[in-house]
């Protein structure tokens, strides 16, 4: 492939940013879920 470094950098960066966003959102959700399970009197929040 010609211009391989440019193509690889584009796909690599896109994948990295999307993974970073996805993992970040997932961690935030599970942290909040654990905390909520401790203090929510109503419970049952998934």
């Amino acid at each position, binding site marked *: *492939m*010609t*211009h*391989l470094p*440019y*193509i690889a*950098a*584009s*796909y690599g*960066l*896109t994948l990295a*940013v*999307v993974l970073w*966003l*996805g993992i970040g*959102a*997932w961690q*935030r*959700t599970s*942290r*909040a*879920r654990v*905390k*909520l399970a401790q*203090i*929510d*009197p*109503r419970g*049952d*929040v*998934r």
Partner: protein
Amino acid sequence: MGAVNTTSLPAGNTRNLHRFANPGQFLRLSGKILPPIAAISIILASVGLIWGLFFAPSDWQQHDAVRIMYVHVPAAWLASFGYFSLALASASSLIWRHPLADLAAVEIAPVGAAFTAICLVTGSLWGKPMWGAWWVWDARMTSVLVLFFLYLGHIALVRAFDDPQRGYRAGAILALVGVVNLPIIKFSVEWWNTLHQPASITLTGAPTMAPSMLWPLALAALGGSFGFSALVLARLRAAVMERRIRALTLAQIRTGA
């Protein structure tokens, strides 16, 4: 009748209840639709990008560098659509005072900013080998950079006030003011002469792109759209839970004191 109690409450009270409504229903519903949306996104985007990267033909003059299109173009579309959804959330916050709209706006902005950043950087990585420049201050590139700063401005503004409600309101006004940038981005390549070429896919004419390239692009864009929605929805779920945690913690402090 069970409904009598709630309907007989004064208007001010229902608005309050509305605002701090039990998040359970939103969380249950969004928890059901989030996994399929995420799965569809991963499948479509993977197929589209692998197709574009390895199986789609190269371009007759750009050769393999054209493959950057399959990440650049969906990111560019989603940068604009993301801002449009930010403006919609802001409008429904200002007009209808929808309880989720403020939180949605706060969670859309960072995702939109990330996709705009992807668009700008991949555009640069495409421009250097093809045009011969990483960056030129033409109308298209400048207006997309303005879009990026609008997102960053929104992110900073909603966090700049001690009272979150004032931050939400300021952010919503900024988001609506920034909407004028969207047609400027879209039509920049027609209103002015630019280094960036005009759109290949329009509503009015045949696409100026071979079908063998159009298909993977469409899949990548569709997968990207589902991915954008899934990211925003996941963040919104977290934000709703965090708001409930704050409310419960405050209540505990009050009753404890």
